């Protein structure tokens, strides 16, 4: 090749490389904004809660008193409310959700299965405030007039079912949260169940198992990591839920044993009290609550991702 031809090839390649380098840097910069925002967020949460963290230390997490007047703050009523309502919600939505997922994955004809899954996934798109509004006018009166009295009649000897029935409270919040977590559990569990290789089912059926036995003893255990992942995802959503909860939980910052009693969650108290918090201590305590919630959701989300990752790796290993 002549010298000029070589030179022109080289310059063309270097301008090519230049363009690629710019593209690389530009997109990296934009990608890095996510890291920047997250770092700023954590820095803000950490810094704004300094006054409260230094005063209460780790004891903040199990302090039961929330008294803005006396500047005495403890997170336990809110942590309890957040965890209780989420766990109770899962107790309702997991059996129903996994049951529905089993039906959609194993029993229903493919057309019905896709159609129903589509409809259930639409439930995930309904905004939280609309769930809250509907709950105020439908779930709360139903709880107050029918369900809570029935539960009291049947289980009134337990401390969980004693006390006045207001319609709002831990149990109502749990019911609303259960409805909101259905879509996640159903959609993802169904995917996990569909991923189970057919030979597993065929082997069980060949051995004489009924369809239910096949499903329950072979397919579901095979898909258990994915199902567990869906539960954690639903849990993560439930923990951060704000609007629907604050409209039906009764907003009381004391610990109660009864599930009929009003309670509070971290997200709800932030929504109600943040705008009016004056002073470094009050604001700091609220931000510290936000920090606790943030950390908890990170852990749960990370677990969920790990489980989903484990499912895909396991699935591909089995297929190999």
């Amino acid at each position, binding site marked *: 090749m002549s010298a000029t031809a070589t030179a022109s090839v080289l310059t063309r390649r270097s301008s090519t490389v230049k363009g690629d380098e710019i593209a690389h840097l530009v997109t990296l910069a934009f990608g890095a904004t*996510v890291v920047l925002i997250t770092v700023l*967020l954590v820095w803000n949460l950490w810094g704004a809660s300094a006054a409260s963290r230094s005063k209460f230390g780790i004891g903040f997490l199990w302090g039961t008193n929330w008294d803005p007047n006396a500047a005495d703050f403890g997170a336990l009523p809110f942590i309890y409310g957040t965890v209780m309502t989420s766990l109770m919600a899962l107790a309702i939505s997991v059996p129903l959700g996994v049951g529905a997922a089993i039906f959609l994955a194993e029993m229903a004809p493919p057309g019905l299965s896709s159609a129903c899954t589509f409809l259930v996934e639409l439930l995930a798109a309904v*905004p939280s405030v609309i769930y809250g509004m509907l709950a105020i006018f439908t779930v709360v009166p139903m709880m107050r007039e029918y369900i809570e009295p029935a539960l009291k009649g049947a289980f009134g000897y337990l401390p969980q079912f004693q006390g006045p029935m207001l319609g709002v409270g831990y149990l109502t919040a749990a019911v609303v949260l259960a409805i909101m977590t259905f879509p996640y559990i159903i959609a993802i569990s169904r995917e996990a169940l569909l991923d189970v290789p057919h030979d597993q089912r065929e082997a069980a059926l060949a051995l004489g198992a009924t369809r239910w036995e096949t499903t329950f003893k072979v397919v579901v255990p095979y898909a258990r990591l994915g199902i567990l992942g869906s539960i954690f995802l639903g849990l993560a959503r439930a923990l951060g839920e704000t609007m629907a909860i604050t409209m039906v939980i009764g907003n009381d910052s004391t610990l109660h044993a009864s599930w009929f009693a009003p309670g509070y969650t971290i997200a709800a108290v932030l929504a109600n009290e943040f705008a009016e918090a004056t002073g470094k201590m009050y604001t700091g305590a609220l931000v510290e609550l936000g920090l606790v919630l943030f950390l908890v959701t990170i852990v749960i989300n990370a677990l969920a991702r790990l489980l989903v990752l484990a499912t895909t790796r396991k699935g591909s290993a089995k297929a190999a």
Partner: protein
Amino acid sequence: MNRLTFRKIVNNVMLTATGLCTLLTVSILFVILGYLIYNGGKSLDWGFFTKLPLPPGEDGGGMANAIVGSAEMVGLAALIGLPIGFLGGLYLAEFSGKFLGFAIRYTADLLNGVPSIVIGIFAWALVVVPMHSFSALAGAIALAIMLIPISMRTTEQFLSTVPNALREGALALGAPKWKVLATVIVPAAMKGILTGMILGVARVAGETAPLLFTALNNQFWPRGIAQPAASLPVMIYTHAIAPYDDWHRQAWAAGLVLLAMVLATNIAARWILSRGISVQKG
């Protein structure tokens, strides 16, 4: 009864039970829609879309400013958040190395999982306090922060479904990488990316918590982005917990409008996605 009959009965009972579970969960959607259509439908009138809210206790008025305010804030959030997420997702799919890619992906997932109320608090400290005012801009920034991880993941996801043959073919023809991306890869994945973005926008359009301490609320028309602005979700919240029957009526109407918009967007996006992503052949 012998063992086989027992097992058959259990089989039928449990299968019916799972069918009932499905019926229950699917019917909830219809109950929600039914309630909103019934209560919202009879409250929805032309005035809802054109009038401003009246002082509390007075009947009539509408939520025209909330509709415009929501559109303004969601639009601005999309303008800010979607391109950032898109370019970031492009980086993750096409340029990233192992370490940086992992770091960015991990933080994006983290940010995605942050409760929206915490993002609202962050936006308050970031925008409202320095600006000394609640503003539509602060609300839009809060929503944009929620959009970035969503659009990043969806971009990366759909870019990675583009077959490598396409990339290699274009590169073999001597085109620089950025040109290949801009003219071949991205357009191939664009349908999926756009629908993912639209779904993300529909989701933030229904968010209330991040707007509580950023955009506040406003009973007048939105006046520029540096002033507080009304939004449909916040209006629904304040009107639903109030005692006035007329406000309840309007809350139902607003709920119907919001849900209709969100569901219509979702259904359209999913239908487009389900028709398959077209990849140029040959």
